[in-house]
């Protein structure tokens, strides 16, 4: 009896450990039906183009836009791509009015940005191109701490609503 129980305990322990071990090695959990696939645009290594990476977000969530931006903030899984959103950036609010998405970020988007025309283009259009993949959104207005900004890093005019730039996308 006792011997059997102990072996059973041992067996359970081994199974539990292996499961944990394997799970830790795995990048992501299994895909189930409750997920929706979105495209996230990240910078190519030479910062010439934006390239889409597909990722699953929970389907039917109240704010898929916010979910998508949060995934964009996390950065790419692929080693061939670079993140486009600086450290510490958080999305404060997403508001959809008509066909315009108003995305309100915290100050880190400006304060922690690495600068440069190219750097700014990659950041702005990774956001704009990602959000305009949803057919109901045609334009994006970027806000910081609830305010309109003249520019993000000193080049692009971000006081206007922005349309996606398809020329930047590497298919």
């Amino acid at each position, binding site marked *: 009896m006792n011997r059997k129980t102990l072996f059973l305990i041992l067996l359970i322990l081994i199974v539990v*450990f292996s499961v944990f071990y394997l799970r830790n090695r795995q990048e992501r959990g299994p895909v189930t039906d409750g997920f929706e696939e979105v495209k996230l645009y990240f910078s190519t*290594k030479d910062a010439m183009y934006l390239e889409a990476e597909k990722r699953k977000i929970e389907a039917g969530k109240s704010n898929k836009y916010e979910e998508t931006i949060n995934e964009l903030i996390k950065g790419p899984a692929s080693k061939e791509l670079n993140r486009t959103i600086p450290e510490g950036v958080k999305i404060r609010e997403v508001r959809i009015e008509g066909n315009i998405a108003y995305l309100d970020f915290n100050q880190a988007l400006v304060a922690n940005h690495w600068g*440069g025309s*190219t*750097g700014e283009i990659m950041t702005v259009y990774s956001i704009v191109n990602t959000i305009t993949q949803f057919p109901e959104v045609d334009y994006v207005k970027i806000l910081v701490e609830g305010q309109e900004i*003249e520019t993000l890093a*000193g*080049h692009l005019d971000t006081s206007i609503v922005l349309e996606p730039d398809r020329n930047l996308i590497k298919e």
Partner: protein
Amino acid sequence: MSGYRSRNLSYILIIISLFLFFNIVVKGENIHIHINGQDKSQELAPVVQDNVVYVKARELARLFNAEINWQQSIKTLSISDGQVLIKMMLGNPYIQVNNRTMRSKGSLLLLYGHTYLPIEDIARCFGFLFNREGNNIYLSRPETFIRDIRWGKGGQAIVIEMDNIVPYRINNTNNPARLELELEKAALADDFTDNISNKNFYLAVTPVAEEARLKISIISQYPIPFLGDRSIAEDGENLVINFLPYITGIRWKKDQLEITASGQMARPEIMLLQEPRRLVIDIPDLMLSDFELELDNNPWIKDVRVSQFTYDPIVLRVVLELYPDRYLHLLEDTVSSGKLVFNTTERTSLTDLAFEGNGIRFISDNKISPEIFKLKEPDRLVINILNADRGEGFRDRIDVNSELLKSIRTSRFNEETIRIVADLKQDIGYSLLERQLSDGRFMNIILFENSFKELLINDSELKTDLVLSFTGEVDYEIKESSGTLVLEVSGVKSAADYRVPAPLGVIKDIKVKPSTERGEGIRFEFATGEYDNYKVFSSKPATSITLSLMKGKIKDRKISNLILLDPGHGGFDPGAVGPSGLTEKDVNLAVALLTAEILQREGYNVMLTRNDDRFISLKDRVEMANSLEAMLFVSIHSNSANATYSEGTETFIAPNKVASSQLLADALQQNLLKELKRYDRGVKKENFYVIKYTDMPAALVEVAFISNPHEESLLASNLFREKAARAIAQGIMEYMQKINNGS
């Protein structure tokens, strides 16, 4: 039964310890070690144990040019580069460094048949700075050496003497007896001397764990009188931490009380409290110390108590216990002289309050120094008289209904204070006059009148601004005649001795006279050079009048065929910052200045949106270009991206402006590629602010990537900057020729 159990337990233990073992030694595949900027991870084969990074001892010694020696008998490894000799025993956390011993976070390890050393401690022993950022470890040589830390200014400052100043900051320790300063990329010199430590102070210098910073801690038995970041100053190549002044004396001198300190004191806050009657004086940023107390036999102060009231903020409290009816008031003008002097005031009786002429008058038994201030909505003037009583003819209310005043009210504000409130019809200036009467009493007059405070002139590219301010609201009129702009201000007293600033910009001469037109007033006559028009940015009446003389659209001033160069960023906006700290704003300005020089030499008219390190908004840059009606606009930038391998040159135009801008951009890009030979990223169309809103052909060049270490070093060099300037100037000249030839 117990035999089975123990056997099974040991199985479990074996399995658990196997897991533990995997956790102990982790191959440091992700750890990258950079020595003087080069990745040496391959050779050093880092491993991690208990969060300490170890590297192959032999490879480390080779990279440090050190000799290595393994003594099997005593299991000891020694490494020496001729200056530093380190000995470490297998499994022993103590390292012998020359003649002293220190404890390491790790110890000598034997793994896969090789000896491994804890890299942080060993690198530091060999004089390297160690900086760990996640999985990247950087070893580098210090940028500055600290030679001496000593007392300065007679013990009122700490002086840190070093080769050159590196970035520093004062830590907030929440402990007033501990001062902590961190210096980037600094190390102690070999001949460093500690001239701080004594029986009250102790100096400790330690590297910050895993970072290339040196922490200097000064610990005292008593609170250290410093004010955080505000206390630190640079003096040549030294850093000086200034201490706050401390109290040195409270003395009774000829019917006055004097409080002295070792340095400048700030204005104190003063309260009068009762039971016992006492004056509480809170002096900010002043420290307690032994001080001299000399009160002799004075009829005002019974007792004095001094304490450090608070440490955050630092406030020293002096409590003076007073005899009945006695009061002391601070002589305001002594505050800036480095001591606080208090005059005695006896209880005074106020009588005969009246409104006569254009002033409030009343009589006091003694000399008083009332506190006077204005309040808004509705406009009021408040006069507080301390240590006073209302006597004969000092009524509660006088209805005046003059041009200036509605009424005067008086009240006992608190036990010590009589308050007079004048209800004003408009915001107006005032002055306090005082005259001793033949019976020894004092006549006090608060005279209502405006006076002229000051005139400021600001000159900029676009306009010359005149700002005139007055003590109260004034009415004014502006008249423009050829060569002169006249400003008539009424309701201001017309004294003669105004100090006027030197003429500037459009203003060629300034005359101030009594008004010739209506009653009392001042007439300002500004002799002007040429300007386009003037604008007034003030309502009527106003306490300050701002006049802008716009020089934008004058035909003569407009420079024909003007080339406007726009060095990107500036001031508090550094633009992108390279891996070694080069800022984009500096590169842009240097290249733009060199470009302007070449174009001027070739006979072109050139201006820059900024000639120095200042912030100008994108909107102002555009406004400048449009109001100057420049012929073309070239914005000069250095690029950056979130990837060190992005490289090359690119030029941008706005999608809304193509034809001529495209011609300009092509000429710039081709010349930049020819001169600089960087990767061609092409001419692109983007919604960039400055090129989109300017009215003339415009392009924005990104010379090279400051975020790329190689291109950053190029951008830092004068030769490369000259080449870039030559290319931009050449591109502009080619474009000008094409336009002039009508192609």
